[in-house]
């Protein structure tokens, strides 16, 4: 690969190579070294995670790049078990002396704690379904490629008298997980993301996409869409707070329902901090709500194994409004006399497990059809600073942001000042009237999921802000 180091002209622009990941055999070598070194210690069992990332991100504001970064890092995380005790130590030094010291540090930590009678032996060798989420075009995207795309978005803003801000990022990562009982799992993927805010006068709007495949979205189209909505958002008028019908675009749905994910952890129910305590098997949501955790869905990302190396299973969490199943780590499954579902976090931890790949069932509507069906309501682009007010009723508060529009008689008629909401998610998912097709959504509060746009009646806005 051509190196920028060969350039002798200080002002010349040469292609910045994307940082490359180590070959999988190198990860195996690190894993084997750790397991070999651990054999000469008192460790009864050893688990090792190797994680490597190579990411780059170009950030722009005021129609220019103002930050532009790249990083490379590799960590080795070692968990040992001795005399029914376990502890984890992580390092980014991979020479043999450092790895030996990390094993010893893990044993030293473990020796300091009381015995854990419920500690399970590590799992043995597993079989995994293959998923392919490493796209070489994403990995190869260079700083110049990102800069040129950003320049085009900024030029578009300048042409329209607007101001652009956002990011364009790409990266690649890989993980290997192994233990002394013969388990070995490895995974690599790419990620790319473009997010843009277009500002016009005091108004703004926003668009964002995220995919393993950088070819799955067009930064120019996203910038154009944000620009058009920013223009529509000018001259926002103030409405009284109250209950409104809302049309939530997928990003707004994601950032709300994303707060539900941990409630489906068996450990959260055992700890009595889930909103599903005493509600499993009951008609909690509307019959049009079904939720599955499915890492294998084509719009999802992430490794097909969990923090202990168990294969992730597809789990139906909500079927036609009824919470049906939870996800279980090995320890939670044993305590509940269930089978583990492959959703455990790396041990030791106090949270157990969580579904990380939520997929909502969609419908045959669309944002356009939802607008057309609405006599009076609000179209919500995105939400901001969402926090939990009541953990059992799942009341969330937050603000609308970057484009809130009034819908009257089936048409968008103007922009509205941003509202604060205080809304129960349980109530919201009872009040869903229409669903669009489920898409890979990306916001800022929750990790990416597959969710539809929704039309919801009776959404509670409690206060209004000044813009």
């Amino acid at each position: 690969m051509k190196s920028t180091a060969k350039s002798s002209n200080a002002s010349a622009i040469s292609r910045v190579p994307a940082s490359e990941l180590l070959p999988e055999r190198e990860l195996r070598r690190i894993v084997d070294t750790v397991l070999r070194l651990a054999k000469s210690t008192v460790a009864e069992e050893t688990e090792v995670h190797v994680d490597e990332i190579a990411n780059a991100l170009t950030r722009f504001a005021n129609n220019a790049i103002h930050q532009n970064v790249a990083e490379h890092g590799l960590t080795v995380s070692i968990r040992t078990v001795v005399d029914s005790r376990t502890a984890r130590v992580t390092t980014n030094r991979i020479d043999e002396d450092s790895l030996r010291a990390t094993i010893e540090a893990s044993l030293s930590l473990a020796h300091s704690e009381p015995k854990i009678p419920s500690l399970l032996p590590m799992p043995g060798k597993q079989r995994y379904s293959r998923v392919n989420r490493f796209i070489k075009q994403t990995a190869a995207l260079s700083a110049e490629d990102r800069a040129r795309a950003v320049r085009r978005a900024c030029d578009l803003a300048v042409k329209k008298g607007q101001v652009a801000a956002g990011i364009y990022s790409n990266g690649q990562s890989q993980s290997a997980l192994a233990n002394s009982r013969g388990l070995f799992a490895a995974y690599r993927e790419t990620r790319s993301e473009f997010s843009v805010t277009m500002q016009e006068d005091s108004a703004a709007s926003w668009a964002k996409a995220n995919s393993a495949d950088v070819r799955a979205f067009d930064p120019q189209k996203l910038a154009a869409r944000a620009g058009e909505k920013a223009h529509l958002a000018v001259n926002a008028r103030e409405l009284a707070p109250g209950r409104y019908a809302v049309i939530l675009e997928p990003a707004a749905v994601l950032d709300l329902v994303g707060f539900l994910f941990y409630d489906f952890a068996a450990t959260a129910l055992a700890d009595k901090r889930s909103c599903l305590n005493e509600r499993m098997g009951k008609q909690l949501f509307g019959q049009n709500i079904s939720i599955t955790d499915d890492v294998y869905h084509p719009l999802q990302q992430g490794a097909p194994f969990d923090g202990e190396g168990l294969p992730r299973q597809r789990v139906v969490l909500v079927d036609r409004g009824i919470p049906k199943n939870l996800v279980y780590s090995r320890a939670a499954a044993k305590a509940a006399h269930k089978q583990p579902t492959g959703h455990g976090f790396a041990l030791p931890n106090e949270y157990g497990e969580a579904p990380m790949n939520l997929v909502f069932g969609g419908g045959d509507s669309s944002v356009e059809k939802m607008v057309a069906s609405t006599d009076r309501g609000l179209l919500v682009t995105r939400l901001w600073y969402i926090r939990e007010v009541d953990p059992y009723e799942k009341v969330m508060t937050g603000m609308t942001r970057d484009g809130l529009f009034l819908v009257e008689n089936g048409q968008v008629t103007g922009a509205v000042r941003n509202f604060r909401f205080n809304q129960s998610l349980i109530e919201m998912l009872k009040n869903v009237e229409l669903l669009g097709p489920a898409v890979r959504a990306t916001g800022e509060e929750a990790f990416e999921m597959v969710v539809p746009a929704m039309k919801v009646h009776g959404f509670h806005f409690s206060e209004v802000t000044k813009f």
Partner: protein
Amino acid sequence: MWDLCTNALDTAQLRGAAYADVRVMHLRQRDLTTKNGQVGTLSQSESIGLGIRVLANGAWGFASTDRLTREGVAACAARAVSIAKASALAKRSEVVLAPEQAYVDSWQSPFRKDPFEIPLETQLSLLLAADAEMRRVKGVTLTETDMQFRKIDSWFASSIGSRIHQRKVISGCGIAATSFQGEEIQKRSYPNSFGGQHALQGYELVDSLDLMRNAPIIAEEAAALHSASQCPEKVGTLILGASQLGLQIHESIGHPIELDRVLGQEANFAGTSFLTLDQLNKLQYASSIVNVVADARLDHGQGLGTFAYDDEGVPAQCTDIIKAGKFRGYLSNRETAHLVGLDRSSGTMRTESWNRLPIIRMTNVSLLPGAWDYDELIADTHDGILMETNRSWSIDDRRYQFQFSTEIGWEIKGGKKVRMLKNPSYSGITTEFWNSCDAICRFDHWTLWGTPNCGKGQPMQTMGTGHGASPARFRNVRIGTAFSNQ
């Protein structure tokens, strides 16, 4: 480490960088938690690497690596320069830095007990004992405790000749009791929610907390909240406990004064600010008894925003933010200082780690103590609600409209705390709220609280910030909105 720094700077300048600064950082962390009498997390980590920021062709580039060989560092520096040149493809103006001197210095934060030298058994046994104290209380369904310790060494070098080594030791500790009953989850935390208190201190911080005395108190309060009255919805007098006021300062003063937000650099993510440049020295931000500073100096206290130099090589400073209620200052860096008429950065560039770019961050943004004794403040309040310990927080992306809820409230009638209230919340508009402040407690009620989890930047960085506060009173505040259902 200095050889690595020199190697990086030399390579960057050879490749065409007009300016470069480099940080080698070694971070060590220990995390301990318990849950329901069992050890939860028991882990330690260390990370060492190098990050270099360069100016080339009038634009910024940054690259980081954990390959700390001569070749690895040189490749990283060369990459940063190439990225800067790519940035120049979409620049509108040249970056100009405010002048700053070169410093050669070494500094270590003061501590009495190195937390990494305290036996782990001692630390775990204290957490398990506090956990057990909470579980003794009937009605408590979940108990949690935690300790977190960090030791951070950083070696900063710049092309103007600075060579600064800093070592920071940070400790954090907290406990929490949760009670699920009927259709309600109630929680109490000590000494603060979301991980307790955090400070630039050693294990003496843990010693000072007296977990064993406070564990049964919060456990009993968590259980008692179920039978407490609901906080009413009204407009009235509000007294905030010091830790909640610390978060109020963080969200409604600390973030809006960040000059990168004001200038639109965070418009896509963290948001902008209502404090546009025309407001400086004009806006009546707060009532005349309110004085707020951003103070990174050790003189201010051992907070999460205390250091000797920021991550741009600028010495720690104290900046007036609000003086007698008037808006007086922003948080700036070398790139933005001239935009507000300053000839020097206010020293607020901070980075989470070697692999992150320094950005403008709060230091210790603190409300200076007032004149009131706490008991006299309560006695002086005819009809009000005292709210303590944060439960949720939210504010719009320009930092006008906020809503907070707390774990517990107390109704005050005729100068006395008369009954416990559950689910308290309040909301308002930032400047209206701060202008309604009519009493602030004295220094003997003042604590420099640590907020360890402030997220900002892309890629996201988590930073610790400090917020000194003592209890204070606010009039005509909207109370109870979070649980209203109109």
